[in-house]
Structures are given as C-alpha cells and as structure tokens.
C-alpha cells in the first residue's frame, strides 16, 4: 500500500469538558477521496483546524508526507502543501476574486518581499490565477470583490486558491454547502477529477456527493471515529445507521 500523504494518530482535543476530538486516527492516501461524515458538532471542523494548524491538539500525532507537522504554524503547513477550505469562507473581502487567487500564486512562488513591481501587470501572477479561476468556473467573476460573491462562489474561490497553491492534499470543509443542486453536481464532477492531482479529505453533508465520490468514508460521532470503510460498508454498518444515517438512509 502506498505511504499515506496525511497520517493522524490518536489525536485528542478538549474544549473544557467537551472532548471535540477523542482519539482520532485517520489517514489520506495518494489518489483517494476520503470522506469524513458525522452529525453537526461531531468535531469535523475541529479536526481540520488541527490538521491545518489553526488549532493546537492536546496530544497525538499529525504527519504530512512522513513529516511531523505539529511544531509548524498554519502558514508553514500551507507551504508544505495543505490546501484547505473553510466551512465559513475566509477570504480577503475587499480583494477581487482574481487578487485572492494571486495571493496564493505569489505565496507559492515564495515572493512576498518584492516591493516595486505592480502585481496587476505581473503575468507571472495573473496568468496562473486566471487559470485556477477558470478551472472552478469563476472566470467571469474574476474582478468582483470577494465580499460581493455569493456563498457558493466563495466556496469555489477557496478551491481555486487551494489549486493555485499547488496543494499536495486538499482539506475541504463542506465545500458544497450553499451551492444549490446544479453547483453541487458540477463540483462533484470537478472533485472526481481532482483526486488524480492530489488526495482529498472531504467533509460533506451532501450524501449524494459523498456516496458518488468517496473511496473511503469515516464516520465521526462525538469526537470519535465509529467506522471507516467503503461506501457499501458504511451504508450497511449498523452502528452508523443508528448513530448517524437514521432509518431509511
């Protein structure tokens, strides 16, 4: 079996008495989409925060391409190749969609200490940024400030940013939320192809998308992973049906 890109071992995180992450172990292998599902408040976003470095775990291990990333801050982990999107979009609101992506391009080039060349005339930045926008279907919205984009468009923009970063793994926190059925279907087709570029840890409530895309599914309930398996295994898992999918799912 190929070495996992991302490998999490026995991760724990409490908020006071609440165990938001309670001994989670999980990995992400090359070429796969690993879906993480679970009811609201299960601790899915908290897990992504700890992987990406915006929250510090209490204990446990996080390895990215074999490397212990726990000492690294969020920016350093992003430079290693974690392409992360937020459940509540997090963009530079005054910047246009294009400039938001250009920021990722310049970060990837490691060149934020250049003081004199205007970015808008810098094709080394604008061209890759336009490409990334085109891939998510936002080309005609390139000049719109992020604050004026719809919820769904902001989601797409975050994915474009992760693409422009040249991410080695995508950590997507509910990318379909607020997108509408057509948007979800388009994004589903897009993610299906994207997994060939880099594996995806996908948190998603849209079960059609999850069942269509996932190579593996892990189910998180109250901070614990109660099952990991293929789509069929999870569909038929009694504890999962009881805890999460409910009858008739």
């Amino acid at each position: 079996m190929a070495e996992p890109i991302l490998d999490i071992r026995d991760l724990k995180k409490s908020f006071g008495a609440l165990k938001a992450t309670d001994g989670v172990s999980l990995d992400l292998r090359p070429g796969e989409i690993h879906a993480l599902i679970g009811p609201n408040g299960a601790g899915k976003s908290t897990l992504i925060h700890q992987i990406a470095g915006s929250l510090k775990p209490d204990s446990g291990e996080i390895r990215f391409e074999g490397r212990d990333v726990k000492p690294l801050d969020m920016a350093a982990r992003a430079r290693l190749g974690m392409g992360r999107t937020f459940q509540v979009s997090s963009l530079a609101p005054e910047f246009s969609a294009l400039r938001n992506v250009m920021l990722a391009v310049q970060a990837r080039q490691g060149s934020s200490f250049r003081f004199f060349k205007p970015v808008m005339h810098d094709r080394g930045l604008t061209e890759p940024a336009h490409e990334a926008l085109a891939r998510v279907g936002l080309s005609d919205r390139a000049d719109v400030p992020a604050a004026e984009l719809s919820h769904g468009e902001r989601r797409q923009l975050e994915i474009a940013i992760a693409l422009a970063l040249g991410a080695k793994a995508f950590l997507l926190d509910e990318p379909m939320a607020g997108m509408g059925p057509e948007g979800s279907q388009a994004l589903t087709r897009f993610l299906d192809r994207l997994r060939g570029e880099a594996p995806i840890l996908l948190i998603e409530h849209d079960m059609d998308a999850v069942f269509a895309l996932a190579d593996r599914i892990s189910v998180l309930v109250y901070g614990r992973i109660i099952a990991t398996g293929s789509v069929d295994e999870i569909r038929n898992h009694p504890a999962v049906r009881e805890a999460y999918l409910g009858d008739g799912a």
Partner: protein
Amino acid sequence: MTRETTISIVIVAGLLAAAFIAQAMGETFYITLATRMAILGLAATGLNIALGLGGLVSFGHAAFFGIGGYAAGILATHAFNSEPLLLGLPGTNQMIVIWIAGAIAAGLVAVLIGLISLRTSGVYFIMITLAFAQMIYYFAISWPAYGGEDGLSIYVRNAFPGANTLAPMSFFLICFGLLALGLVLFALIRASRFGAALQAGRQNETRLAAVGIAPFRVRLTAFVISAMMTALAGALFADLNRFVSPSMFSWHMSGELIVLIILGGVGRLAGPLAGAIVYVLFEFALGGITEHWQFFLGLILLAVVLFARGGVMGLLAGRARHG
C-alpha cells in the same frame, strides 16, 4: 489612470502651486504653512503604510517622528559646537546624513517595538505602541544632555548641497521633494506583492496564513518602513522649527498623525496629505480666533467618522478599489 491617482496628483500639484503663488506674492508665511503641510503629510504617509495598508493602528508613531527630530537636533548641535558625538564620530549639519541617521535609528527602534507589539493586535497593539512612545518621551524629558524638558535649538538650519536652506522656498522644495518620493514609495508598495500580502493581512489574517504567508514578518517589515518615513519627516520638522523638544514624542503627536489619516482617507495615496492640508488650514484659520480650535477639529473629525468614512479622498475619489 484611476480617479484616485488623478486626484492625488491634483492635490500634490496644488500644494506646489500654492507655495509658488505665495512666493510670487512675497508671503513667506504661507510658504511656511505649505512646508508644514508637506512635512506632516510625509509623516502621516509613513504611518499610512502601517495603519492604512497593514491595519496596524500604531498610537506610538510620535516615537519615530521624535527620533528623526532629535537626530537632526543632536547631530546639528555637535556640529555647531565641534564636539565629537560618539566613538569620535563628528556631528553634521548635512541634511542628507541626518536623514539617513534618523531613519536608521528609527528603523532599529521600530524593529524592537515591532517584535514585541506585533505579537498582539487590536486594542493591545494600540496600548503597547503608546506605552513605548511614552517611555521614550519620558526618557527625552529626563535626559539633560540634550535640553531635557526644554528641548534643543538648532541655531542654523541644516545644509543641503546646492541650496540655501534658509530661503523658505528652497526649504519647501526640499520637503516637497521628499514628500513626493514618499508618496511614490507608498504607491509602489501598495501595488506590489508585498503590499498585497500586507493588505490581505489587514482584511483577513487567517486567509494570509492559509496561503502560507506568515503575517508577522510582513507586518514587521511594514512597521519598520513606516517608522523610517515618519522619522524622515521628523528631521524636516526639526529643521522647519529649528527646534526640537520632547513634545515631538508625545501622545498628542501620535494622535495627530492618526487624525490626519482619518481626515484624509485611510489607506489612500494622498489621504494623509489631504488630511494635513485640512488640518494646517484649520489650525491657521481658527487658531487665531480661538484657543479651542481643536474642539472644532474634533467636531469635524466626528462628522468624518460618522458621515464621510473615506475622509477627503473618499469624498473626492469615491470608494477604494483593489483591482
């Protein structure tokens, strides 16, 4: 050219024209007013890099303004008395040397203040920068070697190659030239990759980190550049008044620089200059009538904050757009 650029150029050219008209009418006092506008405009343009672009509300930029001023005062005093300064180095009455010395000194102090204060944000950042500036203020008051509370006179205005700096117009042109350079530098930085990172950090620090750019280094660099520009203005201010005193370090001064930016337009190219023009005009027009002119200035400021968020530049050039 964007509308903002056009209006900025009109404002800058207007200041230059005003000085020449005053010169033609033989009104040197008005040249001095224009010089004051240029110097305060430069000081606030420096602050605008940190505050306007980076969202770093430094309430301690008087520290850098004062360091520039004292660099001029101290170096000039040593040159005047022919006493060596330190390590046997002489003083100097050459403005260019003074500017470099003042800017470097302010830059070094800004590194120290920045390393500590930039670990905080919001109100804490405001208070820590204020605290550092006040420390320097009290140090200046209690340091007798350079006049302590009484300040330090510069007996002859410092020299600039090829210019008679005592002629008001010559000195104005020197100040105006530096102001123009400061504005060009601001515009370049704002449009650059560094400026993009700096402004993104103001809008959303998490976004900046999520693409892999650590906000701290970007901000520290901006803070230092900002401090150096404000120090340069401080050196000019000392030469304008031919006097430096600890009041250059006072929190009033820091507050005044922030006021100039809010009046003129936060983060806008000619905002701080527009603010300085309004401020100096106001001080001149009302200062003669009432000692309480700052009360009326306060009312205007309130009106700007409540009704004209973008200040003068917001009124003239509309909302800022970021490509």
